[in-house]
């Protein structure tokens, strides 16, 4: 395995099939120590399977995964002690109170009473203090999600994996969670995030891998990913009735509330050219708005364009 001493996670040629469905097809990439890393992909891309293999819930058919140099199969105890995973599903044990659940979880990782002050700190940081002695079964969905996050962090793992942690949660929890995770990241924790909220990944992640159909399609820094898009978007609203000139029609990427969005190649389609074509067609503009591409545009382009080759052997 090509593992650098700075790698928090090294994923090497991982394959997994469920019957005839190839969930992961030779996934390889490394996540550096201390990174805030985004793992994106459409539903069924293989993200959760990969996380499950890292966590030991699923066994890979081929390939290896190392957590800070510890193989997840051969040295599984050490590897598991080094990671904390927030599962996607809202699972809980109905028999216990919040604080008991966290202390039990700490015990599974070999942590005794010395972990209790950290548990108390997390209860405060995640706004769970008022629910400290509440039974897990009485908590709302958002509160249960907070407990899941605390459970993943209870043994102070240097690598934290968050599988869709903000799915279906309110804005307040998102803010609380990202503030807390940013604080941990600043102290050196490696954070791996999967999310469908692409703006979250864009704001938080230093590097991003996009997985589709079990393969890594791209892995780059967030800035590189955003810059690789050769387009910009121009939204126009026409002041008078009239058909868009023939030359501009292939550029239309969407229409909404009477506005037309054009996707313009930075090199081939200067904005001035659009205005000239509109004037020549006798069309006046009521409103104009430009937009730079965001991660969602790149995500859609990469995951919808199947002709584009996946990153061969992953990226290091």
């Amino acid at each position: 395995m090509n593992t650098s001493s700075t790698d928090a996670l090294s994923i090497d040629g991982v394959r997994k099939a469920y019957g005839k469905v190839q969930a992961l097809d030779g996934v390889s990439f490394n996540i550096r120590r201390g990174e805030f890393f985004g793992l994106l992909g459409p539903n069924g891309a293989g993200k959760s399977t990969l996380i499950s293999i890292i966590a030991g819930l699923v066994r890979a058919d081929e390939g290896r995964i190392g957590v800070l140099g510890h193989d997840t199969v051969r040295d599984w105890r050490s590897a598991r002690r080094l990671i904390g995973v927030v599962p996607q599903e809202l699972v809980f044990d109905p028999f216990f109170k919040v604080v008991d659940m966290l202390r039990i979880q700490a015990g599974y990782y070999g942590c005794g009473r010395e972990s209790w002050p950290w548990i108390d700190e997390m209860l405060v940081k995640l706004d769970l203090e008022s629910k400290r002695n509440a039974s897990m079964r009485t908590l709302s969905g958002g509160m249960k999600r907070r407990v899941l996050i605390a459970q993943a962090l209870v043994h102070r793992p240097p690598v934290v994996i968050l599988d869709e942690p903000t799915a279906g949660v309110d804005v307040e929890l998102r803010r609380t969670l990202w503030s807390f995770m940013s604080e941990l990241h600043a102290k050196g924790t490696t954070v791996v995030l999967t999310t469908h909220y692409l703006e979250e990944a864009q704001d938080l992640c230093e590097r991003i891998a996009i997985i589709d159909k079990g393969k890594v399609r791209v892995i780059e820094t967030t800035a590189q990913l955003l810059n690789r898009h050769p387009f910009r978007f121009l939204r126009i609203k026409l002041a008078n009735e009239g058909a868009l000139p023939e030359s501009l029609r292939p550029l239309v990427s969407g229409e909404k509330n009477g506005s037309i969005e054009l996707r313009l190649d930075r090199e081939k389609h200067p904005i001035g050219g659009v205005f000239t074509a509109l004037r020549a067609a006798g069309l006046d503009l009521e409103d104009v708005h430009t937009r730079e591409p965001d991660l969602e545009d790149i995500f859609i382009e990469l995951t919808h364009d199947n002709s584009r080759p996946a990153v061969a052997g992953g990226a290091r």
Partner: protein
Amino acid sequence: MNQEKKPTLLPPETDLARFSDRVGFVTLTVKEIKRFWSVLGQTVTAPVITALLYLLVFAQAMQGRAQVYPGVSYTEFLVPGLVMMTVIQNAFANSSSSLTQSKIMGNLVFLLMAPLGAWEWFAAYVVAALVRAALVAVAMLLVALLFVPLPVHAPLALLAMFLLSGASLAVLGLIAGIVASKFDHLAAFTNFIITPLSFLSGVFYSVHALPPFWYVASHFNPFFYMIDGFRYGFFGQADVPIGLSLLWAAGFLALLSAICLWMLMTGYKLRR
């Protein structure tokens, strides 16, 4: 789509077979004890009351019948069998229901992701089930002693039979919990294996009173040896020698433990 794969043993370098996390084991044991303790009425009080009702009804119905063993009344004869039957059923119920519930609720992932090995899982579930079985047995014996005097002929045999039998059924419960993917599967285990075997094990009668076929068939029922050996501990009399009962109970435990540990080490039905 989720095709079942034949489980394979992990490479020998792994330490799955090694018991090495004391804190994890203690935590899981205490958690499993707290789990049944939080519903004590359901897990301890209810089975004790059910067993005492059996005692009341059968003791009344069979009053005046011939003694099963010389110097031992039918009510006296009945108590150890009922205690062991309750031990068997509760040790099985504790580990099987806990594991199945965790699987169905999804919270088993907390255990599966933790650095706990097969031995820690195994030992924690067995110890917790034995604690519940001991509580049920002691409660039953204390109440029964109000009505029937019970001698203790061989306390060590009594303890050995309790530990071997309770542990066997705790392990069988673990196996059932691993195999079951819904409560229906668990109910089938209980209704078609545990209940028939425990009722046909000589709780309410001596196997010597049975017709020849059932007499022979009883000797292939491991629960028969568990109850017979336990009864020997009280009266010093039994249908088969105590050594044979101990051997059967120990062999049954060893066989079930081997199967269960293989399942835990390979992740059978636990890890995909």
